[in-house]
């Protein structure tokens, strides 16, 4: 009997907004599936394309980068640079045939625990039918 596929999601979340929003989801005892492993960084602006490629290469079924809403960045403009840089990464990954659902971005503020919860739920729902991500996965 095969178990239902549970996607592994690597989430790069910024300390000031999304991680705080995820903390709020916790404090409010919201519930979302445990498929996401967070890595807290200082700013979404610090997410290099290499991190995204690396997560996929290490077998992530999905990658999420989440930061502050435009205008709210703790560092003023890091999220704007992330937006531009990662838009290109997304176009490139889709162009070589990676499913668009596998790399996503979101803006989640420190007050948006509900939004964070919903995004994780949606991501898991979208990634499940796709099955394991093997395209960019490195040979073990």
């Amino acid at each position: 009997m095969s178990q239902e596929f549970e996607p592994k999601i690597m989430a790069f979340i910024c300390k000031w907004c999304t991680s705080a929003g995820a903390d709020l989801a916790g404090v409010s005892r919201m519930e979302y599936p445990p498929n996401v492993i967070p890595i807290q960084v200082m700013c979404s602006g610090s997410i290099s394309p290499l991190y995204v490629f690396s997560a996929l290469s290490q077998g992530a079924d999905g990658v999420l980068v989440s930061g502050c809403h435009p205008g709210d960045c703790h560092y003023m403009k890091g999220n704007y640079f992330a937006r531009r840089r990662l838009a290109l990464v997304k176009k490139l990954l889709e162009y070589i045939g990676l499913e668009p659902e596998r790399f996503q971005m979101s803006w989640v503020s420190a007050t948006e625990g509900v939004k964070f919860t919903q995004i994780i739920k949606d991501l898991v729902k979208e990634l499940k039918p796709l099955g394991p991500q093997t395209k960019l996965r490195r040979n073990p």
Partner: protein
Amino acid sequence: MVSIANLQAEVKKLLQEGKIKYFIGYEKGPGLLARPAFIRKPEDADRLTWSPGCVHNLARFIQDEKRRRLREKNPDLRPIGLMVKGCDSRAINVLLQEKYIERQDVFLLGVSCEALGVVDEAKLNRLLDSARPLKVEFGEKETVKVLTDQGEKEFPAAEVLADRCLECPANFPVVADVLLGEKIKRTVSRPYQSIAAVEKMTVEEKWQFWQEQFSRCLRCYACRSVCPMCYCDECVADSIAYAVTAETTAEEKAQRARWVKRNPEPAENIFYHLVRAIHLAGRCVDCGECERVCPVGLPLRLLNKKLEKEAKELFGYEVGFDPNLPPLISCFRDNDPQDFIR
């Protein structure tokens, strides 16, 4: 029309007057294509030529000069002379944007691509069939003339030009100190036609296509070696050379992330090419050299062209036209698109 005699005379003068350290142009190669020529003495200027076989991006050689300067105790700081087509000149602009060179480091002899570009050797060979090409020249009215052992043949440029020339946004030098011949401008009706086929594919078709391509990669790094933008002393995608200088400590080497494994397995090859593509976004001038030199014929231009298109469409960013612009990913606009963000 660019007069080759003028070109030779110009370079001869520059060298005689000592205005440049040496000149990089083209000379007749062993086959159809010209080859890069390094002219150090005025009398050698007679070797220089200009033809549709001048495919190389000579901006690539700037890195060698830069490294030489850093190595030498008392380097000769005169500019190096460089012959630039449209794409070469745009590469110079990118290098200026990235402060890799200063404007006075190079003396540029600009040439417009007369028959609208340079040839694709493979295309021409197919058309020539058994004939052996001896010489290739610009013809009248957008044609390319080829002298072969079976006589002279003339082809419409559109049939024999390199694909990238058919999509080129500037077949004239956008920066030059001396312009040889006239500045011939033309517009391109389908600037991104080469990538249209891949763009139309379904997700799985795309993957099938690229997987097949990447699995053939030998990781010989010819694409990187020939690229005028790949001037890093150490490539993040292939950190084989952890020692960049004699002073690099073991600790520094240990601090480097090894992103890609060296073995040419598909997943590693993909990683390598993804990194190369994303690091060329907003920098690649589509000189097509990576694709031309690839021994297994990977369609590398298609990756770079895609990101060139996205940079233009998403951010209104065109590569290599303005040396004073901040590089693509080091600037933003408040209204950059974000419809892909939740």
